[in-house]
């Protein structure tokens, strides 16, 4: 056959000519975590030069501890955003879950490990509520979670009667705040737990059929359905997985605040979304990596800590985060226009 010379195969013979900008676009399209990685490295270097304290092991380990709760929540948020959804309730769900753990343990004398399991179950239940509303009643995730955000907030405040509960220092639920020393670097069990969450969910997304179906559903629900994927189930599973991360994040939160505080969750909703977006996951679904969200959460904390150490007015930290979010979304839009 004369396939090689036929016009049909002509296009493969012409080497594609891409401008440097197009090549960058392709590179970022294939590696969604690349841009946050570059931003993180540059930010760490800049702040390391600006303030000598920044790169000290103590500063860095504190920085990582400060982002552990947002980091853990961002895992669940990423899974939902990958389905082209969003969870505005995730922070309050976490607070609710932590209240259940702490109050069962402290007020009702339920043993720590059991209280933890019930608290995690409460976290999963919040995910099931969101997931069922999204998949069975076909409401947009934005609206569903805007509603459940208010509901979870009210339930948390009513349940706690507005009160903070402090646990004794040796409580099982505060284990996540305990430090293990590796040389001169101290790291909490909570940080390790967060990393385990990233490893576990990252593996499932990359190496299981469930993960593949999640990406497919997020990119093109109709195509996924025609390929035989039951997309409703996939969507529901995303909210359930988010519920699990809510439970784990709640435990890490206990260790951070030494108990449970019904007013602690307000910022975490938006902070988790910020981490996901800065981490390069597309809000349109189907593209992104959990590891990117870890980088995103780290970037926000690096800016906050770095600017604080440099003695800059804290309001500039907020400003910097805002600029990063808009830049990240702009870059995503540009990458999405990638052409062959």
């Amino acid at each position, binding site marked *: 056959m004369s396939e090689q010379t036929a016009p*049909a195969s*002509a296009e493969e013979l012409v080497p594609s000519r891409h401008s440097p900008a197009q090549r960058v676009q392709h590179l970022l399209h294939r590696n969604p975590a690349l841009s946050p990685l570059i931003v993180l490295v540059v930010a760490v270097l800049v702040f390391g030069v600006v303030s000598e304290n920044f790169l000290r092991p103590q500063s860095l380990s504190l920085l990582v501890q400060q982002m552990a709760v947002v980091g853990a929540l961002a895992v669940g948020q990423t899974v939902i955003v990958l389905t082209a959804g969003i969870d505005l309730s995730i922070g309050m769900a976490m607070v609710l879950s932590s209240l259940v753990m702490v109050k069962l343990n402290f007020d009702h004398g339920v043993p720590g490990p059991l209280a933890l399991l019930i608290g995690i179950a409460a976290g999963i239940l919040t995910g099931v509520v969101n997931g069922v509303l999204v998949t069975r009643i076909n409401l947009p995730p934005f609206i569903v979670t805007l509603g459940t955000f208010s509901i979870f907030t009210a339930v948390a405040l009513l349940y706690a009667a507005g009160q903070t509960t402090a646990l004794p220092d040796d409580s099982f639920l505060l284990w996540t705040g305990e430090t293990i020393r590796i040389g001169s670097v101290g790291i909490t069990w909570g940080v390790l737990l967060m990393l385990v969450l990233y490893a576990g969910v990252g593996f499932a997304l990359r190496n299981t059929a469930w993960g593949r179906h999640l990406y497919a559903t997020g990119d093109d629900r109709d*195509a996924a359905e025609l390929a*035989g994927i039951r997309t409703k189930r996939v969507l529901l599973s995303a909210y359930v997985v988010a519920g699990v991360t809510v439970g784990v994040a709640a435990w890490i939160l206990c260790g951070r605040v030494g108990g449970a505080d019904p007013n602690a969750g307000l910022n975490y909703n938006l902070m988790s979304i910020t981490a996901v977006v800065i981490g390069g996951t597309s809000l349109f679904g189907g593209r992104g990596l959990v590891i990117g969200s870890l980088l995103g959460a780290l970037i926000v904390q690096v800016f906050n800590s770095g600017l604080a150490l440099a003695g800059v007015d804290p309001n500039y930290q907020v400003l910097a985060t805002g600029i990063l979010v808009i830049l990240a979304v702009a870059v995503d839009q540009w990458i999405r226009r990638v052409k062959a």
Partner: protein
Amino acid sequence: MTDPLLELRSVNKSFGPVQVLHDVDFRVYPGQVTALVGDNGAGKSTLVKTIAGIYRADSGDFAFDGKPVTIHSPKEAADLGIEVVYQDLALCDNLDIVQNMFLGREATSGGVVLDELTMEERARTTLASLSVRTVKSVRQSVASLSGGQRQTVAIAKAVLWNSRVVLLDEPTAALGVAQTRQVLDLVRRLADAGLGVVLISHNMVDVLEVSDRITALYLGRVAADLPAKESNLSQIVELITAGRSGDIGIPAATAAESA
């Protein structure tokens, strides 16, 4: 003549009050390309989706390999060896070629972890068996492919499963001349390999060239089912636009009834 691989008898299908398919008889033979032609809205896609188990026929009989069967879900169709390449290309842009070809039917080791090597290998051999040489790497993202290459991947996906009947709904509608050529060659090769192929197309020159039989639908009724060799361009155009041509086709009275 060989027996049909897939045979439909008197299939009716309505959407609410609108009857789209009227007593449709349809046969697909192994080793042949059966062209399904008809004007827009004639019911071609509906017929394909009914065969694929996406829609359920209101009445009618299905036989596969001469045995009566029912097809109530895409899975039941797939289990029989019936695969469809849909008009609106069901590929995910964020996945690569291998991931798309195995989407929904991934190979795993131990039932959990994806077996990427096996999938990649099978994707490569399937593409090679179709003499596809236009894709550089099976790990290329589908978003970076041309229309013809995407169509090729969709067809390769359909034949990956030892399928016996492949239905292609307007596979060349969005393609240029060279890419249409590629796809038509591929369609012919599928039939030459023994599959029963159904091709929906609006290009009658292509249809006459590549197909063995032609089934013409007119307003949801079969106007004619004839060997391509015994037909010609003006006859098919008449069958499509008027439902009859000379002494073959739907009686004028019946045609008027379904209009």
